[in-house]
């Protein structure tokens, strides 16, 4: 790898590791200092490597620099004497403090950081932002791009979230065994949102979108690797992500336009990820609690079988029936109705669709158009036109136009 690619690459992979380990050592109240030390270490690399050449082991080089900077920081701020009051003398900083950048300590640190960032007192949107910054090493402009907003908004959001970490006295530690289930819930929902942000994002940056999804999967896998969090719902969420991610290559054409499921080239589906998903779905089928991730992963599993059959759609229908009881969402209601049409018949589905009354939702009218298409072309067109007037993005409008054209 060339130098100009190497440093950004290392930043993405190593920044979050250094920050996690330093926060573990210094406490979350010093998160800004931890970030600054990590950033400074990369700055040193930028300044040094062009003249002295890339070191043999760039990562180890960064770790040494980060350690030294951290020690300087500790000494300068006398933070050491405040934190570990009285036990040790100030002059023995170097000998006594161990900055442990071993693989195990990094993983522990990142996992604990994940729990800290997803603390229930932090608003969900800020959790995602913090996770992207601190756990995934994303730049502020990348986060702003992913959320389709500007850097100031993201900076403010991150600042407030870090303030919250401090004022709420959130600690960087592994939750105790009786807390783990309740603390896991916001972690999983943040990872779920993070993945969806990447999967459904409007941003044009395809690389960024996949990065978001990959990071959500990496963090989810951290939970699986730890015995205390290797739980059914964690595996279910991972399975869901694998099944969705398996369609990455197939769901966009060369112009970056969405290719609908029905028109996707099956040979582009990633078989390895599908197998991995199936493995974790089976791992998730223990215990007696059925989470929404179980249901969504099972629905996604059925979608990995391209061939249509009544059995497939009957299963999907029942899974949606169940999912909606756990948690309502307009998209689940619409998908259930579509499954009803496939498993039973169009008339029954139309009767149910009319009851939904999602009159501000362009997907609703797109669905009605799709259903009427089979029996009444005029009504189909009316509904597609309504959908068209409600759709916001050019991509959505274009898709609906194609549907209208196909009617003639």
């Amino acid at each position, binding site marked *: 790898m060339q130098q100009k690619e190497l440093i950004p690459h290392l930043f993405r992979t190593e920044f979050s590791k250094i920050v996690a380990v330093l926060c573990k050592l210094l406490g979350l109240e010093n998160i800004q200092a931890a970030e600054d030390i990590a950033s400074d270490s990369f700055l040193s690399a930028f300044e040094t490597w062009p003249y002295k050449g890339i070191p043999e082991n760039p990562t180890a080089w960064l770790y040494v620099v980060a350690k030294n900077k951290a020690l300087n920081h500790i000494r300068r701020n006398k933070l050491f004497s405040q934190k570990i009051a009285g036990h040790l003398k100030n002059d023995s900083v170097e000998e006594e403090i161990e900055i442990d950048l071993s693989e195990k300590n990094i993983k522990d640190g990142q996992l604990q950081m994940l729990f800290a960032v997803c603390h229930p007192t932090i608003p969900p949107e800020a959790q995602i932002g913090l996770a992207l910054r601190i756990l995934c090493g994303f730049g502020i402009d990348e986060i702003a791009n992913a959320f389709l907003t500007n850097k100031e908004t993201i900076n403010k959001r991150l600042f407030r979230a870090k303030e919250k970490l401090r004022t709420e006295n959130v600690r960087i530690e592994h939750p105790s065994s009786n807390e783990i289930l309740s603390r896991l819930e916001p972690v999983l929902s943040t990872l779920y949102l993070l993945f969806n942000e990447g999967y459904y994002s409007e941003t044009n940056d395809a690389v960024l979108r996949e990065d978001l999804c990959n990071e959500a999967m990496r963090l989810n896998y951290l939970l699986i690797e730890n015995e205390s969090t290797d739980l059914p719902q964690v595996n279910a969420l991972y399975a869901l992500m694998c099944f969705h991610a398996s369609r990455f290559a197939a769901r966009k054409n060369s112009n970056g336009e969405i290719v609908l499921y029905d028109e996707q080239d099956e040979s582009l589906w990633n078989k390895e990820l599908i197998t991995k998903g199936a493995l974790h779905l089976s791992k998730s089928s223990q215990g007696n609690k059925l989470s929404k991730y179980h249901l969504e992963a099972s629905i996604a599993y059925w979608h990995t079988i391209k061939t249509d059959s009544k059995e497939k759609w009957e299963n999907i*229908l029942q899974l949606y*029936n169940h999912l*909606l*009881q756990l948690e*309502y969402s307009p998209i689940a*209601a619409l998908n*259930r109705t579509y499954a009803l049409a496939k498993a039973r018949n169009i008339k029954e589905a139309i009767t*149910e669709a009319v*009851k*939904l009354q999602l009159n501000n939702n362009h997907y609703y009218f797109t669905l009605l158009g799709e259903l009427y298409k089979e029996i009444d072309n005029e009504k189909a067109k009316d509904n597609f036109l309504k959908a068209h007037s409600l759709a916001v993005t050019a991509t959505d409008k274009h898709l609906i136009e194609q549907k209208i054209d196909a009617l003639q």
Partner: protein
Amino acid sequence: MEQYALIMRHEDGMKVASPEQIQEWMKMTMDWIGGIAAQNKFVSGTGLPFADAKVITTKNGKPVVTNGPFGDIKETIGGLIIVKADSVDEAVEFAKGCPVLMGEGNSLEVRKIAKDDGVH
């Protein structure tokens, strides 16, 4: 928005159904509930299996426990769901779709859930 309990009453809880029948009923019940949930009107619900059911009455002021809701009382409750509805009429419309009504003599009772407002 009010909440209503839709209480499913079976005329005869002793009737034995085949596993295939039970599966078909389950599916229909799930479709019924799924349809309500798709309108964001489902709150909660539970089936009430007949197995292990007991009835407690009193005789001369002493409790008497009998097996099952059967015997003298023929009609029995099979389950209930709680829905959100703007009016009792809307709740009644939901009730009309319940597959329990396909059984001769079965009925559904619609009852408003008391609000915890100190009045009810």
